[in-house]
């Protein structure tokens, strides 16, 4: 019986570490996009041994285990699909910086920003910068293989992993590295469906010495997308290259009052960085010229403070959309850059007949777009929302893109997975899942296309980047 197993677990670990009351458990059923079902119990482990005990208790009770960081994820990854045990890592926050090795050893609950802050004291930095970096945890970032603006130049979370400590479905502890079979790599982005990441050894790098920031506004989305293509074709690799459309500009302007150009159809934010100031300046010049040629109005940030404010604006886009409609269906498609102008326009046109406010923003530098359908669940038809979301996903696939650039699949995009991967690949996913979690107790109903629902969707074209 689950209740007695978890009651015992509470007696073993202490009342503070195991939550059983409905009011407590209720708070662990959502992430930043979705509400799942109320867990039967919640464990707040402080050590890897606590995690082992928790996993074994769930095994004995025969119920699922869902890992959870700060639940700031945007795919439903941490929202339980079935009643079970939630393991919340927010109290596993030990962090060591090893400056000689240029490494950080972080427990799963360490807040993303804390890694960079600690590394900075040693003249190092940790580049992955998801918008929620003040809230999100390393464990959650690894589970979803989170990206961020800096990933265009510096790569995503997974690119900084040297080793992982993982607790498997049986409660065994493993130390996985990137050697031989890259089992650490297998865990990255697996959304807790193959094991629970309890600690990560992360690569740190020296930060660039100079950074310049500019903002450019455009009269149309097409002009904006074309400007990006031109700048990148010219050989520039900006540290960040971010895009937001008119609705996003309005929503963050309401929040931060920065004086953003409300009347523009699109806004780009660009960081160029490097150790040589002349080179940084030269790169930004090329970008500037490309943007102007496309009709952009370009303005450089006056100082670091203004640059910081602009980036805060960008990080706030997603939650600030709540000002427009209370709910949203968010997508996280990544398409070849060359297809961007067309993709942005197609999605725009697709949405119009539905009548929902549709906004687009994202890490346009690497073709990672976040089309968001905004709606009011009390007034709007969820079927319509889902249908539009599906068709947007199909646009991405048709242009040779993928469903998730950085948020993960979770439960939000799981329905589209059957179309996104071919039958053989899906079978390989399931073979791995069945090997590592034969009882199917690790975060069920996430990420993997449902068995037997494979490759019934439209033809998937493969376009070159």
């Amino acid at each position, binding site marked *: 019986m689950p209740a007695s197993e978890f009651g015992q677990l509470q007696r073993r670990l202490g009342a503070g570490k195991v*939550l059983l*009351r*409905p*009011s*407590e458990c*209720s*708070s*662990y059923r*959502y*992430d*930043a996009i979705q509400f799942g079902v109320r867990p039967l119990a919640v464990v*707040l482990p402080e050590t890897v041994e606590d995690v082992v005990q928790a996993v074994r208790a769930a095994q004995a009770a025969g119920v699922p285990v869902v890992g959870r960081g*700060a*639940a*700031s994820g945007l795919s439903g990854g941490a929202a339980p699909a079935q009643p079970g045990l939630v393991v*919340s890592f*927010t*109290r596993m*926050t030990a962090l060591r910086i090893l400056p000689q090795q240029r490494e950080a050893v972080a427990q799963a*609950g360490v*807040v993303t920003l804390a890694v960079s802050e600690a590394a900075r004291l040693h003249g190092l930095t940790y580049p992955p910068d998801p918008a*929620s970096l*003040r*809230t*999100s945890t390393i464990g959650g970032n690894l589970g979803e293989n989170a990206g961020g603006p800096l990933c265009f130049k510096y790569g995503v979370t997974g690119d900084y992993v040297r080793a992982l400590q993982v607790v498997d479905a049986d409660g065994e502890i493993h130390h996985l590295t990137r050697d031989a079979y890259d089992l650490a790599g297998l865990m990255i982005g697996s959304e807790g469906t193959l094991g629970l990441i309890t600690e990560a050894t992360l690569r740190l790098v020296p930060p660039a010495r100079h950074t310049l920031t500019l903002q450019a506004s455009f009269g149309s989305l097409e002009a904006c997308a074309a400007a990006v293509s031109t700048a990148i074709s010219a050989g520039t690799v900006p540290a960040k290259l971010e895009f937001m459309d008119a609705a996003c500009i309005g929503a*963050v302007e*309401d*929040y931060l009052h920065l004086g953003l150009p409300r009347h523009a159809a699109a806004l780009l934010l660009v960081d160029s960085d490097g150790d040589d100031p002349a080179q940084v300046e030269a790169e930004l010049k090329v970008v500037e010229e490309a943007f102007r040629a496309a009709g952009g109005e370009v303005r450089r940030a006056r100082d670091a403070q203004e640059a910081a404010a602009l980036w805060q604006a960008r990080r*706030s886009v*997603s*939650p*600030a*959309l*709540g*000002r427009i409609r*209370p*709910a*949203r269906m968010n997508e996280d498609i990544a398409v070849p850059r060359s297809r961007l102008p067309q993709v942005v326009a197609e999605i725009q046109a697709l949405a119009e007949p539905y009548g929902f406010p549709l906004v687009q923003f994202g890490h346009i530098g690497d073709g990672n777009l976040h089309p968001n359908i905004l709606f009011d669940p009390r007034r709007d038809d969820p079927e319509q929302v889902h249908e539009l979301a599906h068709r947007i996903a199909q646009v991405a696939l048709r242009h040779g893109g993928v469903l998730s650039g950085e948020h993960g699949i979770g439960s939000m995009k799981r329905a589209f997975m059957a179309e996104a991967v071919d039958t053989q690949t899906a079978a390989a996913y399931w073979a791995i899942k069945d090997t590592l979690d034969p009882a199917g107790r690790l975060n069920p109903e996430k990420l993997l296309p449902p068995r037997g629902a494979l490759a019934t969707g439209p033809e998937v074209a493969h376009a070159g980047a």
Partner: protein
Amino acid sequence: MAHAIDACVHCGFCLPACPTYALLGDEMDSPRGRIVLMKEVLEGELALEDAVPHLDRCLGCQGCVTACPSGVPYGELITGFRGWSEPQRQRPLLQKARRTALLRVLPSPQLFYAAATLGQHAKPLSPLMPALLKPALDLLPRRVPRRNRLQPFFPAEGPIRGRVALLAGCAQQTLAPNFNEATIRVLTRNGFEVVVPAGQGCCGAAALHTGERDLALRQVKQNLQAFGGENYTAIISNAAGCGAGLKEYPVVVRGQPEEAQAQALAAQVQDISEFLGGLLDRGELRPTLPASQPLRVAYHDACHLAHAQGIRREPRELLRWIGGIEVLEVPRGDLCCGSAGTYNIEQPELAAQLGQLKAAHILSVQPDLIASGNIGCHTQIASHTRERGSAVRVMHTVEILDLAYRGEL
């Protein structure tokens, strides 16, 4: 409340801004968690008594309001919920008695003075006192200053530039009478007549934020009477919590006959640093003498100034303007010091942990002086820096200005 709850997109951006989440690391003691709990109680899915431990732990600091990109009016939400839920709650008898006593004694300068003087003598006995009284005693200063009744009117020095009314506050009249005296001196020196309207009372914030809506309403109506009837240049508050309270009046009496009157009053209310900062912006503030020696001043953002009223720039600029002052930023300055009205008394453990954390953060920048704009923070910070063996003085921003005007800084 429904619109406020719906506005939350549960993104979690509020988590790092929440003091109790920082201490406890669990979701139900975070703003996002509390919003979900309130929603479930209101929808009948959760029993009120299951949710209240977590809702009671909320300081009402509104750090989450600053952090929220979606504009959720969390302050209104928790206040509304407390007002709705309090009458339905069963509290233990002793707790109930303490609450009633607190909400009766705090707003009355006479009663508070008597209690503080009595408490001062009992202070050495604090370790022997029941847990119910100990936190209150620990916060009292070693010496309660002599009581000083305020005159009803203070004339301006030099040509008259305006006429302001002063909200004298409750506890601070006893604990720190110099706050009002310094405020009056700085205002009159700048050419403002200061009126201390008779019949004014507690602003009502303490009652409102603890869910005692009827008491709060009575207090609000009393002040509408006391401050109404004249158009002042401004109604000045020098306690962040009270100023925020006055500005909240239109929400308290929403839909009642007093609403227009409350709006008129709220429009006149300014914190002393906001008012003086405005004069400074317009180049109308009379110059002070500079500090006699370079001073490192750690400025502490009171939650009800920074988060509730959005006042951050003015006090810092006023301090810098004095000359010879370097304003130091406190690490994690957005986090509440744990004082928060009656929180200190009702949640002594969390309040103490936050006080210790705040003292450590403030002292880490090695200030010569600590400035803040709220009596609650003042008492809390003084008590916890003292506990760490620090002799650094804690002063109200306006006290520092006052000293500078007198050439005594």
